[in-house]
């Protein structure tokens, strides 16, 4: 009986290890594939693409696409939810500290009336396009404005993002879908790998 129990526990551990290996594999795959897809093979570009924030950046774009954030109303709803979350977060100092954020940084990341208008107008005129500063606002939880800029620049050089300055001095960024496809492919392959058990 004890031996049977031990074997079951061993099996469980083996399954846990297989899952852990798959998770590690998936992350590695993402960085391999994103570097393979990059139009620039300049090591400076690739080194940024290999950074953790590049993964988070791709995940964000994947989620925008997968969650069907498509219309002007959709992006405004996302910004409203983002604002509400930030207001709630500023009322929770313990959580703010846990996330390593402070109220000043969070308030900067809120969409005020003018930035909200700009967000909606740009999205309406060019669906899927964000002002880089608004993109950084949406990503405030996971990366700094400077890191967002750095990743956006590398993604533009890699051919994943269109990044151009508007006549009003805004830096507009729009994904061409490669980042989302690569990220989605890695997640799907991970799921299949886990289902197959190895």
């Amino acid at each position, binding site marked *: 009986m004890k031996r049977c129990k031990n074997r079951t526990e061993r099996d469980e551990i083996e399954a846990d290890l297989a899952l852990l290996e798959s998770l590690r594999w998936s992350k590695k795959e993402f960085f391999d594939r994103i570097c393979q897809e990059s139009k620039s093979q300049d090591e400076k570009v690739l*080194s940024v693409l290999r950074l953790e924030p590049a993964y988070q950046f791709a995940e964000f774009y994947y989620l925008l696409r997968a969650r*069907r954030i498509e219309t002007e109303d*959709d992006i405004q*709803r*996302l910004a409203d*939810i983002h604002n509400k979350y930030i207001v709630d977060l500023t009322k929770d100092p313990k*959580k703010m500290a846990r996330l390593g954020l402070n109220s000043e940084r969070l308030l900067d990341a809120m969409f005020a009336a003018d930035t909200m208008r700009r967000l909606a107008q740009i999205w309406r005129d060019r669906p899927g396009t964000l002002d880089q500063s608004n993109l950084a606002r949406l990503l405030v939880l996971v*990366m700094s404005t400077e890191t967002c800029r750095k990743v956006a620049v590398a993604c533009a050089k890699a051919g994943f993002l269109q990044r151009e300055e508007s006549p009003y001095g805004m830096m507009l960024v729009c994904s061409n879908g490669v980042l989302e496809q*690569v990220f989605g492919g890695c997640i799907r392959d991970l799921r299949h790998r886990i289902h197959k058990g190895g």
Partner: protein
Amino acid sequence: MSRKHLAALVIALAALSEPAVAELRGSPEGPPVFTAAEVAVITRNAVLSALIQDNPWAVRRVLDALAAVSTTPSNGSKRAVGSAAPADATIDPLANPDLDQLQRVSPEALLDLFRLLKEAQPGSGGAKPQTPVKPASR
């Protein structure tokens, strides 16, 4: 500088998962070279100011690691996943604004961001998700 601060700094650096862009400036036999901007960073971060007297090359490596992650102190929310500096050995963010970003952990933030987008999905729960996928080529 206290040992616990140095330990926190070392742990934070070790936890950085990114490949370090360690372009060492200066000769390892001689003192490292710092730009004016880097001197300003050292001056405004108490841990670096203290560390530079004993180990200037460690400061050089910290600055290179910082450059690889982010360089904007007021917006630096990038954090090293898995960094686990002991609670009593954390770096004071007010005294070390540029090092603050090295010691934070954010799996909770990642999950929150995921849930924000889930909530924003049109007709949440109703609309069928569209999954952009590029299958493996191998």
